[in-house]
Each structure stands twice: as C-alpha cells, then as structure tokens.
C-alpha cells in the first residue's frame, strides 16, 4: 500500500520528522499554512487567530467528536514565503510542554512539492506520549467495538 506520509521517530531522540509529497505547486502548499480560512478547512479547526508573520501568533479552537473543545496556540519565529515556517505549538490546559516546529516547503517540480516538518520536544518521554495520543484514542474505540462483539457472541 502506498504511504504518502512518512513519520520517523528514532528511539531515544527528542524529535520526529513528518514528510509528505503533494500534488500541488509549492506556493499553494505554503498558502495552506498561512491563510486562516484554508487552515480551518484542512485542519478541521476554528482559527481564532493567525498572524502569519515574524513574531506573529496563532490560536486554534477544535471541537472533538464528543463535543469537547481543545485550544492550541503558538508563536511564529521565522517565516519565509514558499520556503519555511518556524513556530512553537502548545496545547492549552494539558501537561504537554510546548514544542518547536520547523516546517520546510520545497518545490519538486512546477506542480508538485514536498513538506518536511521537524518537531522538537522537551523530552523523549514527552515525545513518545504525544505520539501515543492518536493510538490510545483509536485503541479505545477498537476496544469498545470488540467488547460489543464479544457481548453479542455471548448472548447467542
């Protein structure tokens, strides 16, 4: 199966890499990161604020399927059109420390581009816990379904 998105997390390191090639020119890929209404569409979040400039900041408000609200924010340290964004990322009201993101944009051809995100975490454990979030969530869902199935089998 083709995997367009690659995630690399070496053992014992405080960083991860997320890489993906897009069937989009690099300027459109970059735009998807700096235009608030576009970020809102593909991230599935409400963009409270996005000031895409050096020393600018952003704030997202996301509602999960259970209706709980989650807030995210960060500061933009460096921004170079169609080339890079360096920013922090923080989840409000959680014990997860702030993380540093280096987002690199590169043209592969006139109509294709490549995105490389390097995320630096405060600690190795912090990194691993963050990576486990979607897994824990998915496992929980799968586990609930398994329980339902077992109940049905038992009731037979």
């Amino acid at each position, binding site marked *: *199966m083709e995997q367009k998105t690659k995630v690399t997390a070496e053992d014992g390191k405080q960083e991860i890499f997320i890489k993906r090639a897009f069937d989009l020119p690099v300027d459109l890929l970059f735009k998807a990161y700096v235009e608030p209404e576009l970020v809102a569409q*593909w991230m599935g979040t409400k963009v409270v604020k996005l000031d895409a400039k050096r020393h600018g900041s952003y704030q997202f408000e996301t509602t999960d399927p259970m209706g709980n609200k989650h807030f995210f924010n960060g500061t933009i340290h460096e921004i170079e059109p169609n080339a890079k964004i360096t920013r922090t990322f923080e989840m409000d009201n959680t014990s997860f420390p702030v993380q540093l993101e280096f987002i690199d944009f590169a043209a592969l051809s006139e109509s294709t581009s490549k995105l490389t995100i390097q995320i630096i975490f405060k600690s190795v454990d912090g990194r691993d816990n963050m990576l486990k979030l979607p897994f824990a969530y998915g496992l929980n869902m799968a586990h609930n379904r398994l329980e339902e*199935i077992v109940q049905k089998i038992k009731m037979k």
Partner: protein
Amino acid sequence: MKTRRDVFQAIADPTRRAILLLIAAQSMTAGAIASNFDTARPTISKHLQILTECDLLTQEQSGREVHYHLNVDNMKEVADFLEPFRKMWEERFDNLEQVMKAYKPKN
C-alpha cells in the same frame, strides 16, 4: 515485488477482530471458530484465509485437524503506536491537497 495484505485492513473488519480475540485465548479449529458465529461457514473460512495471508494466524496440522494460532509477533505490528499518528497526518494532508486543488485565488 511481494504483495502482502495490509494488516490494518485485515483488522478493519469486526468479524475478523472477533476471530482474533477468540484465538487469542486458545488455538482452535476452523469448525470451532465458525461455531461461535451466526455467519455461514464459507464466510468464516474466507476471513481465516485473509488473516492467514496477513500472517496474523498460523495453521498447525494435528492429526486430521488444522488448528489456528495467533501469530503474536505480527500482532505487534498492529500495535505499532506510530501508525495511528501517521494516519492522522495522512488524513489531514489528504484534506489539504483537496482543499488546495479546489482553491481559486480571489483576484
């Protein structure tokens, strides 16, 4: 290139997950597995075949009977915690690509 069925696709089916759960407790024959389901026996056989092709199950001949075992090593691949994280980003980036392909500059 060797074609191999995708493990995550294999466990996407509720009946196949239930089969894995049954066999996790003890190895069983196809007949014993099928007796736990209302589903027709050939359907269960098909599920067993898919799970075997994914190397999640191994078959062991004992006398005239074939027992199915859970292949624990490959279940670890399912538990690879990076995969759900990767899938989350894959979905987001697929969205991004679609949104930007539909994008028309406002000028």
